[in-house]
């Protein structure tokens, strides 16, 4: 009983953990509800879309991490080996990527993916998922890169950095192990969690936009099923439109979770994930602050 109480107390105090558990419970409940009331093909499609979206989100994090980490190391290498021009070029490119609205970059990238699909260079769904993930990670990695660079800059100002250098410790080790690994993991995890939200948001938005049309030769059926893709289907749009009905006819709300489940579930997963990701990320930063 004591252990259970302690566990509950800890969960209550750690907001990130609380919201993560809340998220898992919420999604489990939704899946159970869908198992009971949603027709089998639609439920299978929902599960596939959910899985694909989360795989893309996870891959984006992996690629974004390695891109940022690689760029940080490249930056240090250039600082040591060459003059400042190459460094300025790197900073300039990253600054420019940051300034282009993310959705525009993703849209331009999707034009290329669409062209590749049209020319039948890529047919495999896994390759398309990988391409989407790489594209999204290129668009969002500057945020993580900036976090890493800010941490390094912060430690470079302190005596600790110079002391370690004087002791003869390799600069790469100080940066990668002592600063990024030992002292910045919390910040990096916080950024990765919020980037997961950004990746999911961009992915769903772009898939939804494709439903309006990017090409006559490529339609939603050419892309792997994702949450945005599923939401853009006509029956899901009808389900979302049904929410508006409740304004004029409030009693219609009773019918929503039974008759408009596909669209509502998809929208719920997207919104609930974004909300929980925000809360988890906020919880992590509060925990670091303590």
């Amino acid at each position, binding site marked *: 009983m004591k252990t259970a109480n302690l566990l509950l107390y800890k969960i209550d105090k750690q907001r990130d953990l609380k919201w993560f558990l809340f998220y898992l419970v919420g999604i489990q409940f939704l899946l159970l509800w869908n198992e009971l009331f949603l027709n089998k093909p639609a439920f299978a499609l929902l599960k596939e879309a959910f899985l694909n979206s989360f795989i893309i989100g996870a891959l984006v994090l992996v690629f974004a991490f390695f891109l940022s980490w690689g760029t940080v190391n490249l930056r240090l290498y250039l600082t040591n080996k060459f003059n400042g021009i190459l460094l300025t070029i790197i900073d300039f490119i990253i600054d420019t990527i940051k300034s282009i*609205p993310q959705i525009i970059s993703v849209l331009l990238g999707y*034009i290329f993916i669409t062209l590749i699909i049209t020319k039948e260079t890529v047919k495999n769904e896994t390759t398309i998922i990988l391409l989407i993930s790489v594209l999204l990670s290129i668009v969002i990695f500057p945020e993580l890169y900036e976090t890493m660079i800010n941490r390094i800059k912060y430690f470079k100002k302190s005596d600790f950095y110079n002391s370690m250098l004087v002791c003869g410790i390799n600069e790469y080790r100080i940066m990668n192990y002592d600063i990024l690994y030992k002292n910045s993991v919390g910040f990096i995890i916080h950024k990765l969690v919020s980037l997961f939200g950004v990746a999911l948001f961009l992915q769903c938005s772009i898939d939804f936009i494709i439903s309006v049309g990017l090409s006559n030769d490529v339609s939603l059926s050419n892309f792997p099923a994702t949450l945005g893709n599923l939401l853009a289907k006509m029956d899901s749009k009808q389900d979302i*439109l049904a929410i*508006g009905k409740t304004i004029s006819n409030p009693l219609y709300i009773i019918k929503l979770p039974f008759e408009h489940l596909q669209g509502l579930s998809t929208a719920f997963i997207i*919104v609930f994930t974004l*909300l929980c990701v925000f809360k988890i990320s906020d919880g992590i930063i509060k925990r670091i602050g303590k």
Partner: protein
Amino acid sequence: MQKKAFEHLISVVFVAVFLVAIYLLFLKKEDVNKPKMQISTKLFEKQIIDFGDNYEKALLFDILNIYTPDSIELNSSIISNIEDLQTEKFTDFNLKSGNDNNGLSFGVIKKILKMYFWFLVIYLIAIILIHSFAKTFAIWKFVKVKQGTRSYFDEFVTNLKDYVNNILPKAVRKHKLNIAVKLFFKGFIKTISYFIIFSPSYVVAYSIKGSSISDSLIFLILLAVFTNGLLINYSYRFYSLLKAESKKGYVNTAIVKGLNNNYKNPLFGYKKIIKFNKKFPGHVFNHIYLNAVYQNILNIKELSALLITGIVIIEMALNIQGYLCYEMLQNILYKNYDVVIFIVLLIFITVKTTEFFVDVKYYRLTQKYENS
């Protein structure tokens, strides 16, 4: 300052050159086999023979071979291109859909600039509203935390526990239940608001699509401000700045020296917090607020790109004709990539101009604070 301006300018030039290069290398229409296509198009447009008739086509091929016997392959490809042109006449999406827009002309530029003007109107109103609302929400949250106000959920649980507890008199228990019910509804409204704020704009838009307001400019602005999680993200950033600023040494010194530190004060009434020009004279928070506002200016840079992302999503997903980003999507569909690049450049220039003005403002404020 000049260096910053130069950097922004170089950035615009770089992106312009990059996009034009991509266009010329990969996206330009009908560049492959251009000389052959020119001959084919001329022959096709002149309609000297019936290209639907295989006999007449073979005759043309023979005539071409007689006149240019050394280039049989070229002649063969000319005939093949004519066949493609004929098929295109019946299958090309642009021709079928009545799209007469064949790229970037003066008329198209004029039309796009008109749309761009309205895009800018939405963008500017939204950025002012978000900036103002975010400050209000952040101050409200900061003051609530300082006042020690507990969350609706915690208050609800406490009141419900008191109601269940049989030790308390019946009248008190009834009162506690009333409070719990009120808190439940307040919490419910807050949850719904959270769901709307975190919803991607197209989810909210589609749920009320078809109503009289759903195609209006005001609706677009409201969507840009209140959806996509933008407002809450920006509010939290300002809240973090307030929190960080409140922990600084000068705040403690001011409090020790006797500056007002009481947050349960009429200065923090709703009307004072909502006011556009916020002032808290004689209170330590005034200094915290002013310093946080100074640092928050740089956040507008990020807000700018994020807000444009939101507006682009709204305009594209809502599928309303006459808006810049819808036009961009249509041109992607018609493969008029020169028009697409022109629109992308306009949007990028908007972000860069905002960044430049933010830099100017920040620079001026820094100069002002350093000199005073």
